[in-house]
């Protein structure tokens, strides 16, 4: 039991931190422009694919550095020539634009790289078990993912709270007009944050590609989960996004690891049902089965009962 909890905890933290890399950029973009970027996870996918192509010629490590930069540039271009143009039609049009972009990027990825899963692997240096615990291996690549995620988190925190750029970004999040009045180029800040956010998503894609698979559906798998994190964490709150990422990561891994069903719960109270009724699926529901719907349940509940999110101070 302890072994199960230990590994679930580790895996949960790895997943959570990976999600945070996506969510941190998204939450900054969302709180600044008020646009929930549906295409954010698509940049994550682009990161994985670009890094795969680079790694075929120049190796994994070059891809790790270059791919996020390229994806960040793509993001900046999308903001400058797409989103800023659509802004004149209002918020709904912006939301639909990012939605269409997500659809388009998926098609483009299929057009360029094809529909099959790409053989994008971790570098050979990292292909060994880091330690063995109760007979279970913990791969070194996961530890590497953990390290990169923590490094990014600390860097982001330092930049946002300790540097001048961070101060301007924070000001632009809360009072964009006032910041512009003080002589800062707020549209440039928007473009920069959008680009950096996309670059972070791309980096997440680069390191997640070998672990979770590089295929055209990878954006859809993670896309909606990241929204859940942003909404649950609260608008404009990086701490909230961090806590929510870990929460969702742990929730998903533990729900899969712990195999309890409604039947077990009912048996605690000595209630049993016949297995043939139309509601039979309800009694045999087990935690691993409902694991995929838990985040969405959380999302809907949060939006109903606490629209500001866990740590937010503004309504979505």
């Amino acid at each position, binding site marked *: 039991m302890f072994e199960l909890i230990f590994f679930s905890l580790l895996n949960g933290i790895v997943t959570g931190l990976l999600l945070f890399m996506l969510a941190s950029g998204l939450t900054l973009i969302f709180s600044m422009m008020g646009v929930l970027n549906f295409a954010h996870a698509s940049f994550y996918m682009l990161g994985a694919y670009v890094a795969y192509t680079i790694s075929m010629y120049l190796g994994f490590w070059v891809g790790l550095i270059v791919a996020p930069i390229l994806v960040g540039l793509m993001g900046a271009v999308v903001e400058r020539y797409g989103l800023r143009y659509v802004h004149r039609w209002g918020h709904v049009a912006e939301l639909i634009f990012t939605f269409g972009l997500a659809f388009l990027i998926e098609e483009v990825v299929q057009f360029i790289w094809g529909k099959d899963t790409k053989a994008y692997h971790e570098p050979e240096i990292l292909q060994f078990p880091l330690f063995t615990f109760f007979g279970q291996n913990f791969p070194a690549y996961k530890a590497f993912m953990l390290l990169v995620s923590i490094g990014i988190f600390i860097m982001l925190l330092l930049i946002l709270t300790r540097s001048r750029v961070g101060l301007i970004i924070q000001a632009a999040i809360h009072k964009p007009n006032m910041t512009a009045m003080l002589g800062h180029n707020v549209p440039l800040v928007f473009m920069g944050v959008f680009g950096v956010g996309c670059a972070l998503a791309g980096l997440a894609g680069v390191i997640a590609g070998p672990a979770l698979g590089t295929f055209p559906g990878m954006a859809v798998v993670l896309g909606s989960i990241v929204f859940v994190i942003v909404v649950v964490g609260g608008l404009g709150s990086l701490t909230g996004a961090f806590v929510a990422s870990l929460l969702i990561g742990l929730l998903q891994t533990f729900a899969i690891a712990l195999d309890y069903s409604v039947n077990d719960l009912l048996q605690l109270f000595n209630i049993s049902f016949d297995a043939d009724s139309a509601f039979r699926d309800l009694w045999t529901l087990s935690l691993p089965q409902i694991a995929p719907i838990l985040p969405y349940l959380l999302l809907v509940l949060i939006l109903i009962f606490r*629209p500001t999110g866990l740590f937010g101070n503004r309504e979505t």
Partner: protein
Amino acid sequence: MSEIAKTSSSAASRPLLKTLTPWIGFLILLLALPNIFSSNSGLYTMNLMGIFIIFALSYNMLLGQGGMLSFGHAVYFGLGGFMSVHFMNYIEDGAFVFPMYLIPIFGGLIGLVFGIIIGSFSTRRAGTVFAMISLGVGELMASSSLIFVAFFGGEEGVSGDRTTGPELAGINFGQDIHIYYLIAAWVFVTVTLMYLFSRTPAGRMANAVRDNAERAEFVGYSQRKVRFVSFCASGFFAGIAGGLFALNFEIVTEENLNALTSGTVLLMAYIGGVGFFIGPIVGAVLFTLLQSILSNYTDIWQLYVGILFVLTVMYVPQGLTGIIVMHSAAWRMKRLGSLILPYIRIGIPALAMLAGIAAFLETIHHVRTAFEGDTLMSLMGIEFDSHGVVSWIVILALVFVGGFLTRMQLRQLRDAWETANKPPAQTEGSGS
């Protein structure tokens, strides 16, 4: 105020025949279409079109008329489909007697029930909160559909048989043409109902809440209730569309309520134009045509649809119907004829450019996916070598020369457009 009262009263006193003309035309069109396109694939496409018209119109009750952007509208469509297919099976088992052609009612009812449940908490606010709740509910339903196998049938879905039950004048809907007329009848009835709904005070208030929720509150309407009414009605009609889907295809799967279907309906409504009642109809017709015709010719039709969608959102947010309506001023001033020549002048190079871009994408796709050594490909009946230098030069020339000429012609089109749309006061003054 008096201005508005006057126009509305004059609209009401318009001769009945004039109001009814478009509807009679619509009815005749629905009846005549299967005689023009009588092939099996034509019927198949038109059946799908009818279903999507109802679905897209019900979606537009939210987005276009109520200002609610939903990313989970397939929930009501899918649930309506599943409910209908279950009732089809009950009828087949003889559990009770009910005519098959009224089955979509059950789909509508379950859509309504879920609309009431979900609308009770999601319609509190519009905008991003509503969009997020709809997305959450949509994902929730799509994931649950794989868990509750008894109702949703798991991965393979639930199938039924539409030929059982009491018959209507000896027709058991075994043939595609029968189901076409059934769908056409439902389309006519639901489109009429949805149009009438947009004319009721509830539909009018939905527009008001969309435009300025605060002001609507001050007039004395609860924005939440107004949205709730639209939401429930929209769920009802989406459920009917789902029921027709079940009748037409005799199978409903998890795919019918997942995020992809929700995205498709948004796409259809938006490309058609959400600001007009007829917009989603245009969008549904166009999308179905693209889906069934384009997919015969090319593997990458979804890429084209994606490009079309993004371009529509960026440059023509009023949709295709919006472009058509833009010409109504020139039409009323009888100056539409002066636009034909400029359109032809820009149309030819623009078509060349589009053909070049399409050929570029197709050729790359062919180079990437064809078997080793297979370099011969054909586009629109023209066969050429996909690795040949000449074909690439032709393609690139089409793109760049076409693009350059299109840019050159833009100016004369703009001038012609401005002359055609000049306020009539000046021309009347100079004419008389």
